[in-house]
Structures are given as structure tokens and as C-alpha cells.
């Protein structure tokens, strides 16, 4: 259980985290989303007692991180997988961590086995690939068998197999009743991994809701319509435009209508006597729902300037 109350971090005049109130509960995976610079990493660092809050508190199991007697046995964290002395072996790195918190030596070999690094345990970490470093970071997080796990961008640099592996680890840790808090930029990945999502923008809480609810709430559902006859298609596009919906022609004979329900488009087609080959509701993805939520709070983005890339601002 992670509890944030009024958590605030200011750097001079810049407010990185602005009065976050949040409870991250056990037994599920909580995804942590937000644009670059939204304050995700700062929040995680404050939970781990690395950064001092300007105001408010971050508690783990009701205590500040610094008050935990054996912190690794309560909180496992992966912040920056590359932050290991390159001359150290994987086993030495984990062993020093274990000793600091009175964790049995055999546990080092166990977690090396879990993350699949047993065969390279005696190799220097500097020779590790990005993916191997990430696995070592996860091994370190699992070392103390903690009830709370914090992963900052755990799938960075992992191949598709590794991404699936992280997903299954996060899922099974949550199923065991642990608190799993992870940030990621990969929306499709988050949609598959997280039960709950916390979205922040410019340091403020934007949403704290179940993933499915967030997606359903989005107004960005689209309806896909296929019209075989080009003249009919032009006619229908005009009618849909008049009805106040945006259309987008995709491939060959299909069009995508934003913000409408299938029955509304069906009725329009019926009135016009237009023959349809397909009329289908496309559920919005987490990515679309997220973009809609955060479009106002992108710190270093181009979202406000123009539709350069199209679709970003929708």
C-alpha cells in the first residue's frame, strides 16, 4: 500500500509534483501515466525517500521510506537499471543489496534464476545488454520478496519476449496480493498489464480509475463504415458532416467517423439509401483515451501548435 497525501515537489519556481493525493492499493497493477516531465519519476523518487517532498508525504505501508527497518523487504524498486557500477558482477551487486537488509544469500540465486540471469551471474554488469540490465534491476526489486513493487519504465529496452515476461511478472505479483506500481510509455502494454491507471499531467492528478472505465469514458470511440459505391460514399460523408461528426477516409472504401454511435450512422445511411458493407463500432484504446485526457497538459509537446502529425490532437 502506497499513500500519497498532498505530495508536492518544487524546484525553484517549477512545480514538478503538485499536491498529489493518491492511494495505490495491493492486489492489482496500477499503471502510472503522464507525458514526459509530468512528474512520474519525481513522484517515485519521493516514495523511495530519494527526493524530499517540498510539502506533503509519501508513505509505504504507513511509514516514510526512511523509517522502514528493512526497506528492501517491504519495497522493491527498479528506477534506473543502468545505475550499477559496471565493474561489479551481477551476483556481487545483488549480494551487497541482500547483505544490507539481512536477506539470506540463497535468495540471490533464487532471483537470478527467476529473471533468467543465472548463467551470466559472474559476468560484469558493464558487459550486459540493456535487456539484461533491466532483468538485473527486476531481480533487485524482487530480492527482498517485498509486498510493494515500484517499476519505472520496466520494459524499456526489452524485446517483445521480455515485454511479455515483465507483463506476466507484474500480473502474478499483483495476483499474489502485492502492490504493483509501474510507469510506462507503451499504452498498448499498459492496457494489457494494468488494472488501475493513475494519470498525471504537469504534476497534478488527472485521473485515478480502472483501465476499462477510462477507455469507456472516452468520447473517442469511432465507427467504421464501408461503402462500396464511390458516389454513395461521397453522399454519406456529406450527410455525416452535416450531422456534426468528423469523418476520415481510410483505405479503399472505408471511412471512420469520430464521436458517433453506429445506430446514428446506420440511420443516416438508411435515409440516404446508401448500401453498406460494414458498420462497426471501434472501441477506443487506452492510448486514445490517454491522449484525450492529457492533451492540455503536455509539458514538452507539439500538441498545441498544430496537427503536424495528424490525429495527435484528434
Amino acid at each position, binding site marked *: 500500500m502506497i499513500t500519497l497525501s498532498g505530495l508536492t515537489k518544487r524546484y525553484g519556481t517549477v512545480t514538478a509534483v503538485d499536491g498529489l493525493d493518491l492511494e495505490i492499493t495491493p492486489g492489482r497493477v496500477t499503471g502510472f501515466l503522464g507525458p514526459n516531465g509530468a512528474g512520474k519519476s519525481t513522484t517515485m523518487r519521493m516514495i523511495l525517500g530519494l*527526493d524530499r517532498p517540498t510539502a506533503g508525504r509519501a508513505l509505504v505501508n504507513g511509514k516514510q521510506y526512511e523509517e522502514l527497518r*528493512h526497506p528492501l523487504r517491504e519495497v522493491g524498486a527498479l528506477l534506473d537499471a*543502468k*545505475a550499477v557500477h559496471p*565493474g561489479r558482477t551481477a551476483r556481487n551487486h545483488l549480494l551487497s543489496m541482500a*547483505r544490507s537488509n539481512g536477506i539470506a544469500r540463497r535468495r540471490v540465486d533464487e532471483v537470478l534464476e527467476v529473471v533468467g540471469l543465472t548463467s551470466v551471474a559472474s559476468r560484469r554488469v558493464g558487459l550486459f545488454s540493456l535487456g539484461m540490465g533491466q532483468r538485473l534491476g527486476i531481480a533487485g526489486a524482487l530480492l527482498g520478496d517485498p509486498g510493494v513493487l515500484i517499476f519505472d519504465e520496466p520494459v524499456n529496452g526489452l524485446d517483445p519476449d521480455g515485454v511479455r515476461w515483465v507483463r506476466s511478472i507484474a500480473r502474478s505479483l499483483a495476483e*499474489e496480493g502485492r502492490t504493483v506500481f509501474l510507469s510506462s510509455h507503451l499504452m498498448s502494454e499498459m492496457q494489457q498489464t494494468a488494472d488501475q491507471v493513475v494519470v498525471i499531467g504537469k504534476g497534478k492528478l488527472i485521473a485515478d480509475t480502472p483501465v476499462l472505465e477510462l477507455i469507456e469514458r472516452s468520447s473517442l470511440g469511432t465507427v467504421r463504415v464501408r461503402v462500396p459505391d464511390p458516389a454513395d460514399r461521397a453522399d454519406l460523408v456529406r450527410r455525416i458532416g452535416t450531422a456534426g461528426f468528423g469523418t476520415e477516409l481510410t483505405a479503399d472504401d472505408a471511412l471512420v467517423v469520430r464521436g458517433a454511435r453506429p445506430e446514428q450512422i446506420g440511420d443516416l445511411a438508411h435515409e440516404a439509401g446508401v448500401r453498406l458493407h460494414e458498420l462497426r463500432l471501434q472501441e477506443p484504446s487506452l492510448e486514445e483515451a490517454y491522449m484525450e485526457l492529457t492533451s492540455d497538459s503536455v509539458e514538452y509537446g507539439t500538441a498545441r501548435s498544430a496537427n503536424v502529425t495528424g490525429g495527435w490532437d484528434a
Partner: protein
Amino acid sequence: MNDTKAAPAAAARGRGGLVGAAAAEWTKLWGVRSTWVSLASTAALVVAYTVIVGVSARSSTAQSSGGEPPTDPLANLGTGVVFMGQFAVLALATMVIASEYATGSIRGTLQCVPVRHRMLLSKSVVLVPVLFVTGLVVAPLGLGSAVVALGDVADPVTAGASVRQALAVGGYLGAVGMISIGIGAAVRSVAGTITVGFLVLLVLPMTLQSVSVEFVQKAGDYLPGPAGMALMGVSESDTYGPGAAAALLVFWALAANAAGYWVLRNRDA
């Protein structure tokens, strides 16, 4: 994977706290090759210094040129530690703390040991004894090389004085390590720690002593480097004895660590 509740209980018998933190530092210290390289370099530098000085003292005695040639092996050992050996120790202490900031691994260290004073103390708890023992090993090596290099111009050396000098070398190297750890925690960069360490240990005292204002010269005598020279009996000014020198070194070690602790407390990691 084990059940959430059962597993931590099974692991709970182990220790944490300062003992655990020190055990972790010990593991980290011997887990990198550079530790051995630094310790071997300390010995090599001291031996090299005593050989150079000894050989040149022998030849200058032969030619009977001006000035008093350094023919005391114990003194040559002491100056070798101050002018050369201690900088390998500075480098080692820099690796123990400042390079953790360079690699970012300080954040991992603080996740394991979040209590700042405990984290900082654990580094000295491990490094100081290691350096003291290093001093006990380096001293006979440097003394031997000094005696051999000086040959028949060497002053006589008593066993008691040798033992005393070995303890002084160990004590001084330990102090240099602890002072450097404090500097590293305060400065947080490898280059910065080495620069500040070099200034405090060697350059600043020499500069102050060359200033022709007596008050400034006296102040220079109380810096760690001159204190180390007084401890090893190679001081140029006899402002204070070895006992006061030891106390001064303890003071500097504590002061540097207090500064480091202040930065640790007040700045984000």
C-alpha cells in the same frame, strides 16, 4: 514465487542496520578490481618515492653537496606517504562514494540503506580499517625499500620506531580515506572530490606555508596533510606533537563527514 506473507518472515532473521550496511559496503568494496589496484598503487607509490629519494640522497652525500640529505628511512617512508601514497587512497575513497554519484548507483545504495548517516558511516566503517591494515603492510615495504635505496648512508632504525611509524602510516591513511569520503559526499563528483582532496591534503598547506604572514602559515599547519606529517614525524614545523596530530586528523575526518552528511540530508539524491 512464494506467498507474500510467509516469505519475508522466513528471511527476517538476518540483520540490517549499520551491521548490514557495512556488510554491503564490504561486499561492494571487494567486488571491483579497482580496489586492489588502488591499494597496490599505494604501496607502489610509496616504494617508488623512497627509492628515488634514497638513491638521490646517497649520491648527494657522496658529492657532499649543500643541504641535509634525507637519510632517515622512517622519514622517507612518511614523506612518501604524504607526497605520493595518499593519493591512491584518495582515489579509492573517491570510488567508494563519489563514483556512486557518477554511475547513479547512489540511489540503489540509498534504497538499501535510506538512513543517511548510517549509509555514510557504513562507508568509513569499512574503508578506515582496510586502509589502516594497508598502512601496516605498506610501512614495512616502504621502510625496506628506503633502507635498501639509502644503502650505507641510511640512519639506524629501531624496531620500536618502526612499529610506531607503521601505526602512524595506517592511522594517517585511514584518516585520509575518511576525510575523502566526507568530501565525496559533499561534492558528489569524481573530479570534484579528487580536486578538493588534492587541494586540502597537499596544495593548500604548501601554499599557506609559503605565505610570509605568520598567522596564515600557522593556520596551514593545522590542515590534514601537515597533521599527517606531524603524526609520522616528518613535519617541517614543530607546532604540535603526534598526539595532537592524531586528534586533529580525527577532527578533520568528522568535520568532512559532517559536511557530507549535511549535503546528504539537504539535497535530493
